[in-house]
């Protein structure tokens, strides 16, 4: 939508209305960086999943799996990045619902059921104000056949869950082959006797 001539741009509402989903080229660029984070994780012996949370062209959160270090099995890349965004909001005194509504998550693997539910919960406030947008909140690489919460095992973003935040959009398949390759490399190294990779494409 083009802004109508004569409308002001100074108010917060206008800024929110002017927010548009990132163009494909831009999505590719961020995904390239997320893949870089995943590669770093692989070099450090961690599950190679990388993610970024981008708000107005700025990376507010960047994460990789931290389950082993923290002994907390919920510390997936997405949860680590979400906490960084929450901290940023706290420091800058920003309204977190407004920030999350305009933040796009780029992640190399489809978020699991837990992370998908967490992302939904973070969209709560604006949903109540009826300011739902069609922004693809999540852009991901390969599917997560074991735990995927955005279509593979369950479909949390669009299921009917009226008390669990707001629905959101996902786009999958960005650089999926590279993301799968990283995971295959990891699982091969972890268990050289494994007959098959744990992540594979369902045919």
């Amino acid at each position, binding site marked *: 939508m083009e802004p109508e001539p004569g409308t002001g741009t100074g108010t917060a509402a206008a800024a929110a209305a002017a927010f548009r989903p990132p163009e494909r080229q831009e999505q590719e660029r961020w995904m390239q960086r997320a893949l870089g984070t995943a590669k770093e994780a692989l070099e450090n012996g961690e599950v190679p999943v990388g993610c970024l949370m981008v708000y107005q062209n700025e990376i507010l959160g960047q994460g990789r799996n931290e389950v082993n270090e923290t002994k907390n*099995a*919920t510390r997936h890349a997405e949860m680590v990045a*979400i906490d960084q965004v*929450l901290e940023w909001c706290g420091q800058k005194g920003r309204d977190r619902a407004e920030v999350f509504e305009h933040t796009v998550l780029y992640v190399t693997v489809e978020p699991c059921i837990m992370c*998908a*539910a967490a992302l939904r919960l973070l969209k709560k406030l604006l949903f109540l104000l009826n300011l739902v947008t069609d922004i693809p909140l999540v852009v991901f690489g390969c599917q997560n056949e074991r735990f995927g919460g955005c279509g593979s095992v369950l479909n949390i973003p669009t299921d009917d*869950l*009226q008390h669990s935040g707001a629905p959101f959009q996902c786009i999958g398949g960005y650089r999926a082959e590279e993301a799968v390759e990283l995971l295959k490399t990891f699982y091969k190294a972890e268990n050289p006797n494994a007959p098959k990779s744990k992540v594979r494409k369902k045919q």
Partner: protein
Amino acid sequence: MEPECKKRKTRAISTFTWELRPVLSDEKLCEVELLEAYAAPIINTKQTSCLIKQLACLYPLNSLPHIKRVRTCREKNTDHALEIIICLLRDLNGTDVPNGEVSLSDLFPEGKADGIGLGEPFHVKIPAYQPLTRPQFEAASQHWPTTFHENKQVTDALQGRLFNAEKRAKMQTFMEKAIEAAKLGKEMGMEPVGAVVVNPATDEIIAVGHDCRNGSNPLLHAVMVCIDLVAYGQGGGVFNHNKYPNCHFKSLESFSDDHVINVGKPLLPSKDHSSTGAIVNGLPYICTGYDLYVSREPCVMCSMALVHSRIRTVFYATSSPDGALGTKYKIHTKKDLNHHYDVFKGLMKEECQLLLS
């Protein structure tokens, strides 16, 4: 008799106001699905084994290994004692059977087998799958005999006999702790939800937490708080719980050297219920073998966090509108996932409902 007196004693303390119900998978709860089939009386019982052989070739019923091919006739005063399944209605696809009325010659193509010794075929309904629970078995047997490998645990759970009075009393004390935590959290402006993690092998409380979602992190639901407190107890952890003095954990030092964990016999057997690889430096891998008591049914995020954490059993009091352990989903029984856990609901239901009002 000595046990008699013991029984009376336990009965005296077993007056609980709550009833515990297992939250089973849909397959375990569903009605018995039936298939249309043809059967016939065996008039000449000397032919029985020959008929079984003939039919095994002609109509092998490979997809129904649970079905007993022959049953004894239920009605008295008939000319036959046994009845045999010939085939499924769908096996006759392509055969011209007007009005579903068939004769033996329709069922036994010439030259292949003769069906000698059988009476007039009749219509029956037979169970499509092997029953998983005793109620399903009883319903299935009404139609046609099937095999059944009873899981005693599931039967006991369904009949409310899984936990004795002593166990129930312990469970109540753990849920009381969760309620207390919920109340303390409420006083701090939080959602009134409390949770307790217990090692059932020793009845030690590993962590107690309340909901902190109205603080700086909206994802700190009581379950997420408890998972992190368990991590602290194991030398890990992420969040700063100092602001919440009523969220606490059992520290690493206070574990005995030979920390026992009992993975126990699961209600819903699955591949990974074994404890192999679960113990690192004498401590379990995250929540392996532990039980969770929580005042209300966990959401999707929390239920999946418990899958990742390898919890053993979850006891909750009241259902939640978007709950993921029975209401909207049954994440703990989801086939595609690599860990499953048992769930029971109803523990101190009324007390926990009061919390929410």
